């Protein structure tokens, strides 16, 4: 029998294989690689294939050795293990993707989505502009315009595909936009518009959402105005110093009494245009049963305002000499739109009255 001759390429390959087995015990590693060099020298001389081809992949070779020997795949923090896991995930994703791509409906769906791409370009730009103006304030419209132009140009020219540096940037930006969209739309669809809440301050219409009026920390459920003679007033519209309608909060809906299945809920006034107005006092109130155990529809009845029985009569309004305030009442028209100039301003009240 011929004697194997040392071959530096084989020696290097065996060293590489042993390095791949470095997580095994020395005994196991020696048993696996003992005689391997001689075997490989023989194999090389037998096959006639160039050593570069036969000895190309010590990682694969070591993996085959271990698997045939019944040893676990390389474990721990080695890069090979992570690559293996990543490759498995990649293969799984590719498999799923190919399954979708083979579907007969895929070409149509793809064409549809491609057609919708410009919508996404505009949407992400609006999200970016809304976010920026929400954080820093300032010119929403201009920002949105600039953002839309940039976003559409990036998408239209396919900049992401052309330059490798842009690609990851666009991917990251898209991801942020998606997250921002989810954040904005998940709690309530109206929040995006709230970013520009300064624009609808002057409107008399407003939902009873949010906290609303509070007195000593408790929510105010209704307001009962009386005139200087002690006569109850109705249809009184209230605004704050900024011209915002003063509304009770959503938690104006409260149980009639502890343990009862009835709710008192305020009913907004409705102006001629059909817009609900929550700042017209006193709000009508209705009692509604929570559960219809009696089989009837939720019973509705108007509750007379439980205002003060003893009306302080003869209350004098602040005299004109002491209070040179601008005429405070918004127009009694059905749809008041008080501007800041006509709103009662606390700065106008004299400080010396208290």
């Amino acid at each position, binding site marked *: 029998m011929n*004697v*194997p*001759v*040392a071959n530096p390429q*084989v*020696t290097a390959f065996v060293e590489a294989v042993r390095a791949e087995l470095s997580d095994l015990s020395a005994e196991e590693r020696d*048993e*696996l690689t*003992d*005689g*391997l*060099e*001689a*075997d*490989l*020298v*023989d*194999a090389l001389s*037998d096959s006639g294939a160039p050593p570069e081809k036969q000895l190309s992949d010590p990682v694969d*070779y*070591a993996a*085959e*050795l*271990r*698997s*045939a*020997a*019944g*040893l676990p795949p390389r474990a721990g923090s080695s890069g090979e293990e992570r690559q293996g896991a990543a490759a498995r995930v990649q293969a799984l994703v590719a498999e799923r993707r190919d399954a979708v791509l083979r579907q007969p409906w895929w070409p149509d769906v793809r064409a549809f989505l491609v057609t919708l791409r410009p919508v996404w370009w505009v949407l992400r730009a609006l999200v970016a502009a809304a976010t920026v103006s929400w954080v820093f304030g300032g010119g929403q419209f201009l920002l949105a315009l600039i953002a839309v132009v940039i976003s559409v140009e990036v998408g239209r020219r396919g900049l992401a595909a052309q330059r490798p540096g842009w690609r990851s940037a666009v991917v990251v930006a898209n991801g942020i936009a998606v997250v921002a969209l989810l954040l904005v739309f998940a709690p309530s669809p109206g929040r995006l518009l709230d970013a520009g809440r300064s624009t609808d301050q002057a409107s008399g219409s407003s939902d009873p959402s949010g906290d609303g009026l509070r007195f000593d920390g408790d929510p105010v459920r209704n307001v009962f105005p009386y005139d200087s003679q002690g006569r109850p007033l109705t249809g009184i519209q209230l605004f704050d110093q900024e011209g915002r309608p003063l509304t009770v909060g959503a938690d104006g809906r409260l149980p009639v009494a502890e343990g009862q299945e009835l709710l008192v809920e305020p009913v907004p006034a409705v102006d001629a245009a059909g817009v609900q107005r929550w700042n017209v006092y006193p709000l009508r109130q209705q009692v509604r049963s929570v559960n219809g155990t009696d089989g009837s529809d939720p019973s509705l009845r108007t509750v007379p305002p439980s205002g003060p029985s003893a009306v302080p009569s003869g209350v004098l309004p602040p005299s004109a000499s002491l209070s040179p305030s601008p005429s405070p009442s918004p127009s009694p028209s059905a749809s008041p739109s008080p501007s800041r100039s006509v709103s009662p301003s606390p700065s106008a009240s004299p400080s010396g009255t208290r």
Partner: protein
Amino acid sequence: MRVDTTQLLKGVLDLAVLAVVSTEDGYGYDVVRRLRAAGLADVGDASVYGTLRRLYTAGALTSYVAPSDEGPHRKYYGINPRGRALLGEQTVTWSAFADTMQGLLKAAATPSEEVTR
């Protein structure tokens, strides 16, 4: 599932290696060469070396080293009584399995005759 000789080999490599070594002691590549000469052309050398090592650890093989002054040494494997017992068991298992497969395939190859009969 794709059935090729590589897949089939995985199940019977132990048996094949035991059979080769039982006729004559051999070192790693020698076993590979004999398996290939017998017709298992697709057998991977690392798979054979790993199998030899596993059978040795399981106590079915003995091993000894033939030192070399000039180059790397060769590691020989030989069968022992335990290996022979294992070879006997696995031969029975394989024969039964092969017979079952033969019967299945024979029935599949002649379906029309079954129907006309």
